[in-house]
Structures are given as C-alpha cells and as structure tokens.
C-alpha cells in the first residue's frame, strides 16, 4: 500500500474560532484542509472535551462520557457525549443560516433567518435530558451492531430557543399533519451529496410540546459545533437522534416521516419480545418514542476504598423519558434489600432529577452499590439487561459501582 503524507497547514486561530463556535465561521478557514482536520484531529482539543471522555469512533465522531464525569447537575460541553451520523458541516455562517418550514402539511412554505426566529418568537429555556437510543448497547448478548456505547451517551444541558409549536403556528399547519422531519447540513460519510446522514423526526404531539425547541443556545452560549451549531431541534426524553443538529429545514409531513434512519431497524425495536439473536422482519419493528426509566451513580467513581465505619455519600441523576422518576432506591446486597434515596423534583419537565443517599456498610469486604429508579408509571429499571433487540437499543439496566471497605 502506498504511503501517504498529509501536510496540514492551518491557522490555529481559525480553529479556536471553530471550536468555541462563538464567532461566525468561514472567513479565515482553509477550505481544502478543514474537513480532514475536523475528522482526524485531536477531538479533545477540537471539541474542548475532558481528557477522560472515551472516543468510540472518529469517522464519524462518537464520543461518550463515564459515569463519574456526569456528576454536574447541568452537563457542561466538556462532558457531553457526541453522536454524529455523518460529517460535521463546514463553513457555517450563522448570519446567513436559514430554517425553512415546508412539507405536504404546511399551508405555505416559509423561511426564517436566526434573527427572525429570535425576534418574532418568545424565547424559552429548559434543561432537557438527551440520551442516545443505543446507550448501553455494549451489554447486549449476542452483541448488537453499531457504536458500543456503555453508559455515557446521556446528557442534560440547558437549551434556549423558540418553541417549534410557535413557529409551526406562524407558518400554518394543515389538519392532516402527522409527523415532522428535520433536514440538516451534515454530509454523508460516503461523500454522496444525494444522501442525508440522518433525517429523523417526531409525531405531531411531540413536536407541539412546550419543551420541544428550535434551539440556538446550549448552557447560555452558542451551541458548540459538535452539538449542532447554529440550530438544533431539541426534543427531550426521546432518543437523542430526534434532536437533529445543524438543521436547515423542518418538513411537516402528512405521513410518518420517511427520512434516513426512520425505516428498517434504525431507532426501532421489535413490536413483540424476541429471543436473543432472533431475526426480526422490518415490518415487525416499531419506532422508539419515549426513552425508558434510568439512572446513574455519578459519585463516587467506581472503585472507591473506604475505611471501616466511613460513611459513603452517593449521588447521581435519574430520568424517565416523558415521565418523572417517582422513587429511587439503592442496594448493597445485589438486590436482596433495597433502601430509599432522596430524589429531587426535576427543574422542569424532561430534565433529569438528582438523587442522594448516605450508606453505612455493615462489615469489611467487597460491595457493589446498585441504583434503581422507578417512574411515575410504576416501571423500574431491571437489574439484568432487558429484552434483546437487533440494534441494541433501550438498555436501562441498573447502574452499579464497586466499593471496598477496609
């Protein structure tokens, strides 16, 4: 095989601009070299990530957190998982960026600049839980195809933008509207311009929720490039793939949206339970909507050694898709007995909730602390990996950490 040498000449200043996503891009970028750099550079510098984040895939970028990195109540950019399906768009200019609302079920197609959105509609901020549908995939047996997420493909940042429902009302939606589907500026891995890496969406009842935003800010700043600058659809509590990044078009459909990764096995699970490894026909699969109840112990980090009699204060977050977490328990005897944790109310609907407990261990030895959330519908997290499915979605098994008492 021929050896290649890549010579990259680049102005660091323009990359810094790109990363922070604070200034309009494109003025000082070296077009031919930017895509290569974006796909192959050090992601920790490129995206401003904590050095303990785990890179699962670099083409496209797929990066996850570890449980203890997610200890913040509001997830900062540095600890936020990145799940990309295609290549990050280049030469984004927020000043000229537009969002078009079209589709069979709009009365008239309309196009908005970001300034239009910000001046014509009321601004809202919510803290919203975004979890990848495939979070926990690595535990399925037989293994499921795709990025082998462990537990870190979840975040809960604050998102600021305008309500999709307000924008749709201004455009005018017909009675036959069924679904919305987003289109975005990212490009397909194969380089084929006729292919979209991902174009998913949500049924109208989700699109019209108060918390479903067309966001232009994350944690009070411009959305970081890897998370969808300059516009992202944000639909908390549903698979994060519904929350399209770099969006430039939303189609209001009179059918279930049929964009890329809406069909086949993508973001779908079997309608009826199947045995591990079973082949499931496409028509026997259904689209994932609300994510299941789940929790993470974010403190302490697994592997803590305590002195005898030392009290262990654990804490973490719990979430339940469209619902609320109503009860939180922990066990130090592999589910033999469960004890109650304190659980806070969410700051708003679809935000994760914080739990805590103080644990006294009866004697020296090896322990595991298991955490189990129960949602307002009475559903709890299983201790084992739940129902196998071909693409390895919805693993909400209890999280646990190892502890040793001297």
């Amino acid at each position: 095989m021929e050896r290649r040498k890549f010579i990259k000449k680049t102005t660091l200043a323009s990359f810094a601009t790109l990363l922070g996503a604070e200034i309009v891009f494109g003025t000082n970028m070296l077009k031919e070299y930017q895509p290569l750099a974006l796909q192959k550079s050090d992601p920790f510098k490129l995206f401003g990530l904590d050095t303990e984040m785990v890179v699962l895939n670099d083409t496209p970028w797929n990066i996850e957190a570890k449980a203890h990195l997610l200890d913040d109540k509001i997830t900062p950019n540095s600890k936020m998982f990145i799940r990309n399906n295609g290549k990050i768009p280049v030469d984004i200019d927020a000043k000229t960026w537009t969002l078009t609302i079209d589709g069979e079920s709009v009365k008239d197609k309309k196009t908005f600049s970001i300034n239009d959105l910000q001046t014509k509609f009321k601004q809202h901020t919510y803290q919203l839980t975004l979890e990848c549908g495939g979070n926990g995939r690595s535990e399925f047996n037989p293994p499921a195809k795709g990025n082998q997420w462990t537990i870190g493909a979840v975040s809960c940042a604050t998102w600021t933008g305008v309500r999709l429902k307000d924008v749709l009302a201004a455009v005018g939606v017909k009675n036959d509207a069924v679904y919305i589907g987003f289109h975005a500026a990212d490009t397909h891995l194969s380089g084929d311009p006729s292919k979209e890496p991902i174009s998913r969406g949500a049924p109208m009842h989700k699109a019209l929720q108060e918390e479903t935003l067309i966001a232009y800010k994350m944690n009070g700043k411009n959305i970081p490039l890897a998370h969808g600058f300059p516009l992202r659809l944000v639909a908390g509590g549903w698979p994060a793939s519904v929350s399209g990044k770099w969006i430039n078009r939303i189609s209001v459909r009179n059918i279930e949206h049929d964009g890329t990764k809406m069909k086949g096995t993508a973001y779908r699970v079997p309608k009826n339970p199947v045995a591990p490894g079973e082949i499931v026909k496409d028509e026997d699969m259904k689209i994932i909507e609300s994510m299941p109840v789940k929790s993470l112990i974010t403190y302490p980090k697994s592997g803590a050694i305590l002195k005898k009699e030392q009290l262990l204060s654990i804490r973490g977050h719990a979430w339940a898709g469209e619902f609320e977490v109503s009860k939180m328990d922990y066990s130090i005897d592999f589910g033999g007995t469960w004890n109650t944790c304190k659980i806070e109310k969410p700051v708003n609907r679809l935000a994760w909730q914080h739990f805590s407990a103080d644990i006294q261990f009866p004697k020296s030895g090896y322990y595991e602390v298991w955490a189990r959330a129960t949602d307002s519908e009475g559903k709890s997290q299983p201790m084992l990996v739940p129902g196998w499915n071909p693409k390895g979605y919805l693993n909400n098994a209890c999280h646990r950490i190892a502890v040793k008492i001297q």
Partner: protein
Amino acid sequence: MKPSSNEYQQLIRKAERLAYLALFALVFAIGLLYFRVYDPAFSVFKENAKELVVSIDEDKIENGIHLSTGFIDGVGLMTVVNNCTNCHSSKLVIQNRMSADRWNATIKWMQETQNLWQLGDNQKVIVDYLVKNYPPMDTGRREGLRNITWYELKD
C-alpha cells in the same frame, strides 16, 4: 538595411533578456501553481500560521497490531484496511463483534444503503478475518464489573 554588428549584439542581448524574463515568469507560475495545490490559502504568508506535518506510516505493525488502524495483524488485514476504512473508522469495525452471517448481512446493508462497492472474492477474506480476530463472546444476561481501578476515597 543590414544591422551593424553592434546593433546585432544589442538585439541578441534584448532577446536574451526576454528569454530570461520568460523563464522567470514560467518558474514563478509553476511555483504559484504548486502553492495552489499544496497551500491554496497561501497560509504560509499569513501571521500565526503554524505548520503541522503529519506523517503516517500506514504499513507498520507492532506487537501484532497494525498501527495506523489498530487492527489485529492476520490473514486478510490489508483487504480489510482497503475496503472497510474508506467511509468509516476502523474503530467502528473493532468495537463490533459478529458471526459470519451477521457480518455478511452488515455488508449487504452497507452496499444497499451506504454506497459500499461489490467486494467479490474479497468478501470471504474480509468476513473470515473479522470472525477469526473479533469473535463474539458470550457475556450472559449481565457481565460482572471488570477493570476496576481502586482508589482511596477521602472523607
């Protein structure tokens, strides 16, 4: 009128100068062309420009690992490198563990939806390599905690 030898020499010198000028222009144009190819933004002339030269030895294998991709060295390695790392990262291959049937189904899916070309005889070479080097492991209904890094937790 025939030019005198003096005038003749002057003419030659003029032609010479013209030839030098043309040669210089040519060299400059070629130089410019090279710049267009290797540094289209002429960043060398800009302030703050920092040159990063990345040299990748694509064939090097160390401790049984193909360094530039992370793949395990084995029969079919370069066939896998050449066919499976053009669109996506080798990292995506390495983290997946499948049977021959499921790898074949995955290849079919990539051909149908992701613009993967027909692999011909290479398909068997690729699938054999993957099944041998990245076999699925039976992890039961829930694996025990592994690779725990122990540390002392202060009060």
